[in-house]
C-alpha cells in the first residue's frame, strides 16, 4: 500500500520539496498516517475486537473466564424461548412504528413550520426540545403520566368520557405506548431534518410552479415531497437504527414487562447478562447486529439507488 501511495505523494509534495526542510518530510507528508494511531487503537480495541469476538463467543457457554464451544445451542435457545421470540417481534414493531410515524409526522410538522404562520420559532423550539432531554427523565415522567388510574392522560380522557386503557399494564399495548413516547421525544429531530431539506430546495422550483398556476397541494406533492427525499432517507435510516437498538426508554418504563410483553432484543441482552448467561447474551448481540445490518444496509442501498434516478 505504501508503494502505491508514494507516487501520488511525491507529486503532491512537490512544493514541499522546494521548502527548506522539505526533503526530511518527503516520506510522511503533511498528512501522516500516525494521526490515525490513537483513535484507531481505541476503536479497534473497544469496538472492532468485541464485535468480531462476539461471533465466536455466541457459540459458547461462557463465564468470562472459560468458554466451551456448544455450537448453535444459544441460538436455538434464543429462537425457542417464547420470551425471546416476543423480544424479536417487539423490536421490529417498535422500529417500524417509530420510524414510520416520525417520517409522516416530521414531514407534516416541517411543512407546517416552513409555511407562513405565526410563532414558527417558538413552535420549532418546543417540538425540538425533548430531543435534548434525558431519556430516563422522559421515561419516568411518562410512566407517571400514563398511570392507569391517577395518570394525567387517563384523567384527561376520562374528563371527555373516554375510558383510557392501561397504557403500560396491558400486555398487548405496552410496547406501542412506549413507542408513542419515543415518537414524542424524537419527532423534533425528524422535523428539523425535514426543515433543512425543504429549505434547501431551490426557489426556482416554486417560482416555476407559481407561473404554472399550481396549488399549494400540487407544490407539496410534486416539488417538496420528491425533493425532500434525502431528508426522508436520513429520517428512516436514523430512526430505524435507533428503534432496533432501543433500550433506555423501555428499560425505564416497563423493564420489558408486564411479564415479557414489552421486551426487545436490547433488554433481553441486558437480562441475560444480569443472569450470568454471557454466551446467550452475546448471541442476542449477534442477532441484533444481523437484524440491523440486514435491514439497514439493503434499505440504504435501495433508497440511495432510486435517488440517483
Amino acid at each position, binding site marked *: 500500500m505504501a508503494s502505491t501511495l508514494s507516487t501520488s505523494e511525491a507529486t503532491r509534495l512537490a512544493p514541499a520539496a522546494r521548502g527548506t526542510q522539505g526533503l526530511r518530510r518527503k516520506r510522511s507528508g503533511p498528512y501522516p498516517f500516525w494521526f490515525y494511531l490513537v483513535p484507531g487503537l481505541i476503536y479497534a480495541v473497544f469496538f472492532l475486537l468485541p464485535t468480531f469476538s462476539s461471533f465466536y463467543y455466541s457459540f459458547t457457554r461462557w463465564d468470562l473466564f472459560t468458554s466451551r464451544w456448544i455450537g448453535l445451542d444459544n441460538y436455538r435457545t434464543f429462537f425457542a424461548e417464547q420470551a425471546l421470540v416476543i423480544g424479536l417481534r417487539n423490536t421490529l414493531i417498535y422500529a417500524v412504528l417509530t420510524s414510520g410515524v416520525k417520517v409522516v409526522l416530521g414531514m407534516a410538522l416541517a411543512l407546517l413550520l416552513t409555511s407562513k404562520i405565526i410563532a414558527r420559532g417558538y413552535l420549532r423550539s418546543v417540538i425540538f426540545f425533548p430531543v435534548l432531554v434525558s431519556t430516563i427523565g422522559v421515561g419516568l415522567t411518562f410512566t407517571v403520566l400514563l398511570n392507569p388510574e391517577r395518570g394525567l392522560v387517563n384523567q384527561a380522557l376520562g374528563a371527555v368520557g373516554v375510558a383510557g386503557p392501561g397504557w403500560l399494564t396491558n400486555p398487548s399495548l405496552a410496547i406501542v405506548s412506549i413507542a408513542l413516547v419515543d415518537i414524542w421525544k424524537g419527532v423534533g429531530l425528524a422535523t428539523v431534518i425535514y426543515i433543512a431539506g425543504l429549505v434547501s430546495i431551490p426557489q426556482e422550483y416554486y417560482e416555476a410552479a407559481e407561473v404554472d398556476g399550481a396549488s399549494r397541494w400540487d407544490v407539496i406533492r410534486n416539488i417538496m415531497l420528491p425533493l425532500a427525499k434525502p431528508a426522508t432517507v436520513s429520517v428512516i435510516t436514523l430512526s430505524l437504527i435507533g428503534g432496533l437498538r432501543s433500550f433506555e426508554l423501555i428499560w425505564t418504563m416497563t423493564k420489558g414487562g408486564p411479564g415479557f410483553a414489552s421486551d426487545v432484543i436490547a433488554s433481553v441482552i441486558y437480562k441475560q*447478562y444480569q443472569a450470568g448467561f454471557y454466551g446467550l447474551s452475546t448471541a442476542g448481540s449477534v442477532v441484533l447486529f444481523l437484524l440491523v445490518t440486514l435491514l439497514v444496509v439493503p434499505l440504504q442501498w435501495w433508497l440511495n439507488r432510486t435517488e440517483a434516478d
Partner: protein
Amino acid sequence: MKNTRGVVIGASAVVVTAVFFLVPFVFILLIASKDRVESSLLQFSWPKHFVLFQNITEAFAARDYLMVIAFINSLILTVVSVAALVILSAMVAYVWQRRGGRSSGLVNVLVLAGLIVPPAIVPTIFVLQKVGLFKTMPGLILIEIAFGLPFCILLFRAFIASVPRELDEAAVVDGANPVQIFFRVIFPVLRSVIMTVIILQTVAIYNDFQNPLYFLPGTQNATIQVTLLNFQSQFTSQYNLLFATILLVTIPPLIMFIFFNRKIVEGMAAGSVKG
C-alpha cells in the same frame, strides 16, 4: 386574508403543542414543588404548599449527597470524552479527507460500520476486564470515545472538505511539521464545526444511560442518568423528590438549548443527513 390564515393556523398549533409538549414539563415542575403527600396524588394542579426548594435540597442530600457525586461523575465523563473526541476525530477526518486513495476506502467502511453496528456488550466488558478498566471511569471514557468517533469524524470531514488545501501547502512551504500544521493552521479554522461537535456530543454523553449502566456499575461510580433511575426505586413514595431530581437533570440540556438553540438544530440536521 392569507395573513389571517397564518395567524389562525399558527395559534392553533401553539395550543396543540402546548398540550402535547409543554404540559409534561410543567407537570415535572408542579410535582417537584409539592409536598410528599400531595405529590403522590400525581395531579396536574398548583401545589398547596410550594416546597420546590426544600425538595431540591432534600434530593441533593439524599443518601449522603449521592446526587452531587453523580453530577461530578457525569461532568468528568462528559468533559474528558468530548475533549478527546474533538481532537482525535478532527485528526482522523483531516488525514482522511486530504489523502484519499485506498486507505480512505478502509476508513470509510470503518466509520459507516461504527454508525450502524450495535456494540456487542459482553465481549466489550470482557475486553475492559482484560485491560483492567472495567468499572472504572477511564474505561467508560474510552468506550464513549470509541462509540462516538464515527459520527464526529463524519462531521469534521464534511467541514474540512471546504477548507482550502492551499492553507496546508503554504504551511508546508513555511517549514511547519504535520503537528504544527494541524494544530496551528487547520484546527483554528475548524472553530464552528468544533462547537457543533462539542455541543452535540455533550448532550449525547451527558444523557447516555446504557453505556454507564453496563461499563460503570456501582452506586459511587454512577453517572447522573443511572442515579436518576436508581432513585425511582428509592423514592417510590416520594414523587416530589423523584421529580425534583428529574428537574435538576433536565436543567443542563435546557441551558445548552437556550444558549445554542440554532447551533444544535443546524448541527443535528447536518450531522444526520451526512450520516
